[in-house]
């Protein structure tokens, strides 16, 4: 089953490789991994999308907690949460396609953030599945470049990951 795990870790050199090294050394899957500093400059927040049996996910949580740099871990999939991913897509936008691509972007609540004579760059935010749907909805031949951030997640309501 797919899980989305959030964690706070010390903003130390090498902390990221401790986490990614753990996943490769123990043979765990990583579908995506994002990391960036938080409002507290000494902490980074990481979101990992992974999959595995309940036993494997339990081990992943325990092994992450064991890393000295990791301050706290939360499996967002254990409760209500919100998941978002950002995607930038550069498409060939010429002739009739120009209008059609703008229309599709609007339907998916995307924004055209860069325009040239022959291209659009569209920004799209949402759950991963929505981004997948957009890519399927437009003419595949027109896609020049896709950049996705991987999922970020946060608990709903009072579910908070803090020290």
């Amino acid at each position, binding site marked *: 089953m797919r899980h989305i795990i959030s964690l706070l*870790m*010390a903003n130390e*050199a*090498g902390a990221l*490789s*401790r986490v990614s*090294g753990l996943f490769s*050394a123990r043979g765990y899957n990583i579908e995506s991994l994002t990391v960036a500093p938080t409002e507290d400059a000494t902490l980074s927040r990481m979101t990992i999308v992974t999959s595995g049996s309940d*036993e494997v996910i*339990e*081990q992943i949580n*325990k*092994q992450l*907690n*064991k890393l*000295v*740099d*990791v*301050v*706290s871990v939360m499996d967002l999939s254990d409760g209500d949460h919100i998941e978002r991913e950002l995607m930038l897509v550069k498409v060939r936008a010429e002739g009739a396609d120009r209008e059609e691509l703008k229309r599709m972007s609007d339907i998916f609540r995307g924004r055209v953030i860069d325009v040239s004579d022959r291209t659009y760059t569209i920004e799209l935010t949402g759950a991963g599945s929505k981004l997948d749907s957009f890519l399927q909805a437009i003419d595949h031949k027109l896609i020049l470049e896709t950049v996705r951030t991987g999922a970020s997640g946060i608990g709903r309501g009072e579910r908070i990951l803090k*020290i």
Partner: protein
Amino acid sequence: MELTGAEITIRCLQEEGVEYVFGYPGGAVLFIYDELFKQEAVKHVLVRHEQAAVHAADGYARSTEKVGVALVTSGPGVTNAVTGIATAYMDSIPMVVISGQVPTSFIGEDAFQEVDAVGITRPCVKHNFLVKDVKDLAATLKKAFYLAKSGRPGPVLVDIPKDVSNHKTAFEYPSTVNIRSYHPQVTGDANLIKQAAQMLLEAKRPMVYAGGGVILSDAAKQLTELVRLVDAPCTNTLMGLGGYPASDKQFVGMLGMHGTYEANMGMQNCDVLLAVGARFDDRVIGNVAHFNSVPRRIIHIDIDPASISKRVKVDVPLVGDVGSVLTDLIKVLKSSKQKPDAHKDWWKQIDEWRGANSLNYKNSSEIIKPQFVIETLHKITHGDAYITSDVGQHQMWAAQYYKFDKPRRWINSGGLGTMGFGLPAAMGVQLAHPGETVACVTGEGSIQMNIQELSTCKQFNLPIKVIALNNRYLGMVRQWQEFFHGNRYSQSYMDALPDFVKLAEAYGHVGILVEKPSDVEGALKEAFARKDELVFLDFRTDSTENVYPMVPGGKGLSEVILAEDL
């Protein structure tokens, strides 16, 4: 007053009460060696290979309750140390390894003797640090010692660039450590302890399975008290030997791949299993599905939550220090009105299994049987020696036939299975216990993996007794080839062996060749009578002898091969 990084390093070691540093100098650690030279509190033991430095620090730590310390230079110094670090990591041994690094301004430029020490050791350390600023050095070393010995112990590497060891700063050794992300749980959950006690009181066929955690936590006393209280048979893992007295009537021997029949059958057939500081390793419980096919309830005490329910699902997880949890569990058991049943039928069953006499072997008057050497060693040393071992058949025979009654006497590489561990580990043990008897049980294969340390032993007058069971084969490999690879002894014969007696003599030691069973006892007596000398005993043993019982890899604990089956 400001001190250099090198001075700070030595001051920190002094503050930690470090008695011995095992190491090897080189360019990147010259400032640190210069400071070592100027003082006497911290003694340096010069090994002949960095792997041996780490094993020696490891043996020192295993035989005491202290943190072992090794010091190596950058590049090949630290890569040579990696096997030792991984060995300590797998067996959770408290250790601090200080490595030199090229100057900070050279890092990343493929400088001479540069290697990414933190990167290379990351998967086999509890934690590691690269110190880029001398101001962080004292606090980092404090953290390193704290991390190494607290919680589930393990090796910690501190990588110090050469310029950092020469830069100056004010020195103050922190009295406390606070790592906000690191708070190992020491005390067990009171409710779960009550549940565990109840389960043990109601058990019809209880079994206690105790591992290296008992040794590391110095909890042999508590374990013994608890086992007697619940009237259960007790087995030890390879790492746990000595955690429960082997001569006690409730002891059923070591379990696992080469465990006794009664220990393995007891594990398989008990209704309540108390696992103490052990981790259900593949060499211990064999095939997990086979083990799980019999219903039993499991209580698991371990300081590392990640060890619990990793391979086998547990009913009562007790996270905490083994000694602390056992003490609390004993209190609850003692205060309970209910007394455990007398497990008469269970003991009758255990005794039946004992009747299989699974460690029995056919002695010979013609050829030396390795088991006989270990039994005689036990007799001559009154079971009171510190025994280190290498890896292979001799290791299993030592574990099976040297009956350890005390903890920290049995020093071996259980998790990683590192050949070449025994001799350097014995050096650490002998330095930690100067007046005590230390023997290294080894084979002609393993001993050659760190034989250069005979030179270190000479320099530091370490009167270790090397008990080489020389069967002219990589015996464990040969055994598996006999059992599972159609007797094709691919590369397992040791050809062109050196004359170990002459070799020992060349290093300035005493060597004794023993070829007849009738000479075994006399040779051992002579060796141990030479209290101040290292004696290398080259026992020419039966080259076809196998280790029994054996649970083949991937099989269940009750699917055992006994000596008489063949």
